[in-house]
């Protein structure tokens, strides 16, 4: 009776082919297999997780990782309460991109968004491939920016569930529910006190976003 369900919109960001969808598929259905094509699409998935008294329902939004689609990302992470920024531990470029995403999220996404930095494809390293992104480097980024940090292997399933449990623990449950209702409260409109000029547009935006979406 007391289990209240909190919906959390979680958005997946990261370069193409770093394994965003694989992580989610592993989390949702636990059926990662190298040659077996999953039967379901991974573009939008939901998964419930019980956390003590609460049930968290993750609504997972995948984004297209190609660079040319990067400018469309704000549509996807709008009102998101959590983000998974994924990179490939064997591809330095993907880590650079991950840095960008973290920066952009801090600048543009909801203010209290919980971000998890995830280095994926750990299994390749365990099989002898060369690691190109040092764990320490990622850890220090996570520390600076206040991110959760995990290294995972979607293939073996290692650490995948911990990512989502970690996010679930860090989400302030009480506010999560309000947030789910009021939507864009944390978005750009709130940051008007940063400077002293009369920011007319900002007041507009805030007023409307306050009364706007209550999904």
């Amino acid at each position, binding site marked *: 009776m007391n289990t209240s369900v909190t919906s959390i919109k979680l958005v997946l960001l990261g370069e193409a082919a770093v394994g965003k969808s694989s992580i989610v598929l592993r989390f949702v259905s636990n059926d990662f297999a190298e040659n077996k094509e999953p039967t379901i699409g*991974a573009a939008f998935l939901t998964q419930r997780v019980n956390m003590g008294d609460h049930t968290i329902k993750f609504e997972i939004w995948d984004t297209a990782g190609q660079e040319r689609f990067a400018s469309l990302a704000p549509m996807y992470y709008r009102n998101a309460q959590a983000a998974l920024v994924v990179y490939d531990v064997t591809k330095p470029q993907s880590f650079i991109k991950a840095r960008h995403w973290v920066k952009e999220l801090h600048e543009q996404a909801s203010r209290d968004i919980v971000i998890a930095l995830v280095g994926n494809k750990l299994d390749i390293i365990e099989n002898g491939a060369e690691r190109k992104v040092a764990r320490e480097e990622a850890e220090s980024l996570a520390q600076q920016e206040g991110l959760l940090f995990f290294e995972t292997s979607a293939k073996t399933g290692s650490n995948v569930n911990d990512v989502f449990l970690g996010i679930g623990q860090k989400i302030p449950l009480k506010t999560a529910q309000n947030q789910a209702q009021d939507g864009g409260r944390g978005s750009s409109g709130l940051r008007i006190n940063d400077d002293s000029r009369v920011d007319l547009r900002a007041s507009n935006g805030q007023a409307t976003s306050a009364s706007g979406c209550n999904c």
Partner: protein
Amino acid sequence: MFHTPPINESNFDGSQAIRESYRIQVEGSSPDLSNSSSNGNGSLTKEEIASEIEQITELPMDLSRLVDNFIDDLKQPKYLKPLNAVQLSGLFQTFYARFDKASFQCLNKAPDMLNSTFFTARETLSSGISGIFNRSRSSSDTARKRSSSLFSTDSTSGIQPMLSPEEINKHLRMTELNNYRIEKLLELCEHDMFKKILEVGTSVPNNVSKLGKPQRDLKVTNLFKNSPEFLEFDRAVFEKIVVLSEITKSGKIDMMDFLSVPQQNLDSSKLTAHLDKMVYGPLAPYEKLLNVIKLHDEMTKSLNHLSNDDFLSTLIYLIIQTPVKHIFLDLQFIKLFRYNKKLVEKDLYALTNLEAALTFIEGLTFESLPVEAQKELAGDELILLQTPISQKIALPEVQVSSNDSSQRYSGLPRSNSYKEFEGLRTAFDSSLRNIFGKIRSYTPPVAPQPPATQDKLPNGVLNLPASSDIDLSKKRLPIEDSWKSLRNREFEDLKLSEMRQVFENYQKLLDALDSQ
């Protein structure tokens, strides 16, 4: 479980809180309803839900009357200026919320949904929270009291017997079932509403037309009639899609390769049929949205291992391959006129994908095409692909635009209080000129303005002669028009968010004065 709006939370959804508190209390008192769920099992099977929902084929009379009233209300020539699409959307959304509440009451009051003693939403709304609570307290129904003591602190007398797990399960089931029922009713509501608008046409006496001239076949475009920027944007998007489509067909560019669409056997005609149906099918936003969802589902099914990496490019490819007129406008229509509260989860995701695809096309310039393809382009094609459409045509700020991360549907208050409508009228009047002024002043297609000037120019009073009726002489600071929207409101009617807005304006004024 008793929801009290927190004082410092401007965005607390009062309507929902009331509904939920109310729901739990009332459910115990409707034994007829509980009986319909035969076993005490807490969860509902899909079949059960489907069979329940199937029974609802039309709106009960009372709800239907609400729809009629709303349409009649729309037709009243009470606004001095025609409403644009965004403002209309605000009215619709308010009505949806009202209808939502009314259908909940209807379900609880009248399990068979034929009960004629249904009270209208307006009545309830005017009596407000206290009205609802009084009603439940004054009830002599023991079942109701018993259940309310379980779920709230509102215990009226001494010891009450606890509810058995079965009873609790029943309540949960009923709540769930009612949620589905309400959803169904809302769908019917949208359907009926737009059907009726279609039937009665949208003509309004005295040339004070909101939706345009008498229309026998109302299309989405008519709702946007007073929002020229939407129409223009829509036209530009379609033009661009057609050009891209022609370039692709003439072999000047390998669009499949350019978008890195996974090489699969796409049944593109079947998939794009959904887009076509979205535009030319039934008018109700929900029905249009269904087509988007179907497209989403079928794409998910037909393309194996589909992450959004593939999904988006495939979708863009499909749109370019089969240009559908007014696709952009229909997307905006769904966003504006579908009940926002129900536009969530997968529905919203599917819609966002479509929006992202169109935004990509809208922003596509020839520079982003492969070099070989650039050389092939003819002059007029080059011109069309020169700049992103959003740089040429500015949609109103309330619109969720391509590079704007915040969701802004409407500047209109969306509360449920009926008085709001009175307030709206004046708010419209005072701000409309400014809104229209804004629309016409397209941003120049060349270099984007520095943000500092942009903030003031489109809104500022200084460059808008239309606002000269306000005493300019007194003012030293430009006054944002949205500040004035509260001018004619009663203090008692202000919502928290509005008070906060006022306070912030006050702070900004002080800041501005300090910095001078």
